[in-house]
């Protein structure tokens, strides 16, 4: 037929066009995933259901922290049309400009169609006003949120805080499903156990139409996940001991660490200056964080695990252990000390100079003889077994590390410091090579000075090690997790394994213990008593480049069945026995007896009011108008006052300028006190009432 092949050509043309369409469909429907994403962005509204965070309990199942409900005012900017801004601004106490500014912030952060926080953590008053008027603010709603609450106002450093995640956090935890606006543990146990405490967030998916209205559950909720509450953590902390430790450290810079040597569990860990953990939750946070962060005394710094202090004399028992184990001395080894150690030329002072105060190891410990332990140190370094000082030093350092000094112990808190037992490399560098130094060059390491530093936690752990006679458990807070699974068991396994650190015979430990016991009987800590218990202790007064000596005290009790090991440091306070000692004694008494005697309570009141803040810090407060941080010195005639080093107190006395400000704050506080009702006034009142009553009687007649 005429032109009939053209029908074929038309078919081919049609076929080609269809082929084009199909190719485009393949590229759209099979090879581009962005459309599915775009569609989900369009139409699926994800609502995250936040579970309650887990709770942390102390040894008596008291909650160290809890959850309370707080409300946020949230808004979807696209739907906020026809809002009665005047009323809203009045309730929130902002102006129209502030409203616009916040709206823009919400849009920048969460886009126009997503829920964004307009005002977080509403006060109950504002919340009530908003619920009443919410119908006037289309697009706004109130979102429930669980926030932390600390009923005992204690253990801020240990517990850490929870805060909104930032972009840095999101980058770091990209695989863990966090989103902008989520909260996560930032420090302390909250951070360490974030994965357990946070639980599992639930997601509800809703279908949303082109106007942003919710049409109902997406796919009947079959893709929704339910929120699983975070699991609780159980510690061996004692919140009352913790509170006591924090109270005793008031107006001082320092730290208290108490461990249970039998398990390695932390009983109390305080660092001063500290802060009330409730100040970093809810809307308090915004006000407080900046102030805490810029404070020169660093109240957010956990000195218990980060502070590096020369251990001073508290190190002496360890030095003795090494010498005993190496067979360099016997318990009867004595050193003839007359108040100076001159074997290395430059004489070193000793507190005692009466003959025989270091006639044997036990005596030397009790009297804390510097010369004795300097000699013992030198013997360890120059040990003929190791041929030269360098190898001797390395052996000595190995002992140190096995005692838990100069290395991270692995406590379950983030950013623990390993402090320092110096490396031979440092000495090689400083003294021009390994050949050029010997034990005299780092002589004072033997009395816990030189470049040796330790954290309070390491010192407490060393006490646990001595108390246990040769082993310790890695210090930790968390003993068990609610509904512990295999993963948790793995996590906690290292805290449950005994650290069999050395093979030092137990009889050597007995000698050390006896010596430390003598410290509390007739030695440097003789006046510190724990009612009902014998204990072992060692005082320390460490020289440091920052000013006055640090006051240190390490101990464990009871002597024969140790249940608590304590290390206390009070910075720039003077003698170990004067400040750190009584604090440690009270902590032990509180833990072992579960109560304090009346006498001890008075001591607590007294100690907690003593101001030992270094003057540099006080001056800083005065310069920055933060005098509320200062408290008046409170020295009265207490039973202790006679044994205090009066010179030391004189040094801490504030300057005239400081006194003036203190007086001001003092008088200010006085005005705040409620005045007692004047008895004369009361009488007048009564007499004023009586005539009325009489009149009534008259009228009734």
């Amino acid at each position, binding site marked *: 037929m005429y*032109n009939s092949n053209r029908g074929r050509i038309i078919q081919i043309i049609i076929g080609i066009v269809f082929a084009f369409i199909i190719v485009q*469909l393949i590229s759209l429907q099979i090879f581009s995933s962005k*459309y599915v994403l775009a569609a989900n962005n369009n139409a*699926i509204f994800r609502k995250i259901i936040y579970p309650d965070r887990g709770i942390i309990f102390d040894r008596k199942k008291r909650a160290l922290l809890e959850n309370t409900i707080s409300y946020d005012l949230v808004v979807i900017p696209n739907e906020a049309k026809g809002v009665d801004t005047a009323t809203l601004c009045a309730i929130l106490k902002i102006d129209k400009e502030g409203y616009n500014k916040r709206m823009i912030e919400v849009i920048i952060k969460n886009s126009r169609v997503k829920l964004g926080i307009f005002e977080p953590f509403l006060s109950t008053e504002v919340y009530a006003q908003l619920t009443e008027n919410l119908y006037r603010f289309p697009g706004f709603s109130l979102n429930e949120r669980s926030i932390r609450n600390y009923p005992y106002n204690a253990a801020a450093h240990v517990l850490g805080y929870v805060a909104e995640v930032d972009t840095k956090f999101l980058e770091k935890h990209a695989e863990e499903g966090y989103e902008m606006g989520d909260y996560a543990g930032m420090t302390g146990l909250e951070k360490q156990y974030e994965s357990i405490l946070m639980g599992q967030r639930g997601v509800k998916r809703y279908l949303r139409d082109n106007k942003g209205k919710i049409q109902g559950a997406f796919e009947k909720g079959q893709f929704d996940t339910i929120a699983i509450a975070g699991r609780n953590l159980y510690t061996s902390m004692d919140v009352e001991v913790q509170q006591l430790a924090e109270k005793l450290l008031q107006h001082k810079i320092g730290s208290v660490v108490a461990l249970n040597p039998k398990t390695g569990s932390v009983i109390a860990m305080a660092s001063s200056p500290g802060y009330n953990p409730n100040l970093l939750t809810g809307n308090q946070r915004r006000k407080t964080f900046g102030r805490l962060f810029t404070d020169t005394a660093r109240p957010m710094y956990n000195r218990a695990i980060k502070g590096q202090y020369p251990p001073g004399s508290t190190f002496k028992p360890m030095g003795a252990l090494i010498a005993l184990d190496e067979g360099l001395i016997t318990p009867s080894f004595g050193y003839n000390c007359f108040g100076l150690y001159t074997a290395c030329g430059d004489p070193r002072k000793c507190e005692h100079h009466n003959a025989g105060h270091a006639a044997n190891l036990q005596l030397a410990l009790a009297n804390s003889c510097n010369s004795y332990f300097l000699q013992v140190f030198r013997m360890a370094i120059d040990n003929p077994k190791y041929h030269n000082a360098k190898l001797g030093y390395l052996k000595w350092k190995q002992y140190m590390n096995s005692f838990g000094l100069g290395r991270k112990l692995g406590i379950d808190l983030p950013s623990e410091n390993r402090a320092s037992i110096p490396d031979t490399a440092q000495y090689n560098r400083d003294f021009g090579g390994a050949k050029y130094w010997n034990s005299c060059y780092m002589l004072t390491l033997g009395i816990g000075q030189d470049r040796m530093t330790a954290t309070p936690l390491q010192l407490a752990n060393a006490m646990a090690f001595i108390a246990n006679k040769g082993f310790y458990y890695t210090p930790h807070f968390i003993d068990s997790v609610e509904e512990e699974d295999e993963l948790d068991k793995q996590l906690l396994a290292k805290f449950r394994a005994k650290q069999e650190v050395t093979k030092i015979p137990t009889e050597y430990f007995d000698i050390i213990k006896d010596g430390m016991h003598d410290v509390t009987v007739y030695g440097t800590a003789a006046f510190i008593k724990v009612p009902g218990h014998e204990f072992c202790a060692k005082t320390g007064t460490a020289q440091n480049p920052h000013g006055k000596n640090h006051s240190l005290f390490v101990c464990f009790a009871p002597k024969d069945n140790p249940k608590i090991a304590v290390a206390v440091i009070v910075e720039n306070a003077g003698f170990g026995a004067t400040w750190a000692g009584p604090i440690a004694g009270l902590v032990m008494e509180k833990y072992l007896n579960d109560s304090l005697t009346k006498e001890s309570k008075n001591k607590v009141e007294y100690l907690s009011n003593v101001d030992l803040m270094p003057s540099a810090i006080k001056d800083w407060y005065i310069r920055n108008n933060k005098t509320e941080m200062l408290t008046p010195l409170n020295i009265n005639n207490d039973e202790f006052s006679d044994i205090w080093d009066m010179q030391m107190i004189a040094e801490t006395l504030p300057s005239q300028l400081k006194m003036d400000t203190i007086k001001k704050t003092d008088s200010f506080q006085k005005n705040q006190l409620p005045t007692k009702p004047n008895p004369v006034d009361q009488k007048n009142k009564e007499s004023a009432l009586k005539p009325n009553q009489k009149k009534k009687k008259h009228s009734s007649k």
Partner: protein
Amino acid sequence: MSAKTNTDFSKGTDLAVIVLYLLMVALGVLCIFMVEYNPSINWSNSFLTAKTNFSKQIYFAIFCAFIAIFILLLDSKVFTALANLSYVAGILLMLATFVLGKNINGSKSWIPIAGGFNLQPAELCKIFTALFIAKYISKPETDFKKLKSHLIAGAAIALPAVLSIMQHEMGLALVYSAFIFAMYREGLPPVILVILLSFAILVIATLLLEPSVLAIILTAIAALVIFSMIKKFKKNKNKIILVIGIWGICFGTVRFAVPYIFNHVFECYQSTRIYSMVGKEYDCAQNKKSASNTSERHGKKPDDYNVKQSKIAIGSGGFWGRGFLKGTQTRGKYVPEQHTDFIFTSLGEAFGFVGTFIFLSLYLFFLFRLIRIAERQRSAFSRVYAYSVVGIFFFHIAVNISMTIGLFPVVGIPLPLISYGGSSMLTFTVLLFILLRLDADRQMVLR
């Protein structure tokens, strides 16, 4: 013989096409139902009260079934007899809209008739033009090899197209280009197709490239042609003039015609849509035509919003689709005009590539079937008419689907038999069933 077919109307009608027709109408109702579905509405109730589009579509379909039966009962000769008259009536109706016209969605192409229904003469004119062209070409005195008859046929097609443009119905006007299939089949020289194709490429190139770059390329091609064929040109100097003439026309198109059409003939939104196809932005400030009424369009959603949402809906279907009634974009009403021009998106989202592929295969089979029907006609009238139907259907399908997947600018063209709308369904039913009626009498020679 004709009396016999009248009594037995089903004899000779192509069953396959009827089955495909019913299948597609049913599919259309299903798609509209998906668009409207809302779990909180009582369906049986809304169906009876005919308040929803899908139930209205069912009523339209029932009405169309009666019309189809009526057409099948007619004598084939009616169509040849009425061809010229209907065309004239159609043109008159279109002219009448300029007086009686009612403005619906910005186009003045509707004449209100009784009962709240509106008539769109431009739709009906497609049928009338098809009949008229078939009649004209099949006349024994017409020699379709001659340029004169091409021009007459072209004019007959262009007239309703121009009228449609004047009624702001760009899409309907474009449909008239579908008659090129019928004309090609009947002897339009392929050179014309090649020229049209080249012209289309030139226009697209104009949009894509800088005018000066394009001018250099064109000049280079012309120079190359002259240089390579220099010996031939020495013999015949006319050919040089021809080449230079073509170069001149191309150059004029690039520099003057295309910018003129975009800035003075098209509305701003039309230019924008076309530019957005090639991934460019059109500056509406250049547009003189809509310069006066730009303020009207201020604040509306961007012009590529439809296509973007449409692509999202189809793309999110993936290979297997989201499932029946599970399309989130459809449920959320993200695609504008989804029940009419963008009905393909609901199908694409719910049934994925598998669904769209099967659907396109169905349509392809349908078109090939119609071509087969066209080729088996004894009379030229039936054949030309059949190719017109093929052209119109193909053009609608290709343009509609291409615009939903971003291959063609958005023009308001419905998907035949699927999109919601009584007018459109009626037009396609009449078009198709006239063909079936003619096909039943394929052994007859109609004049």
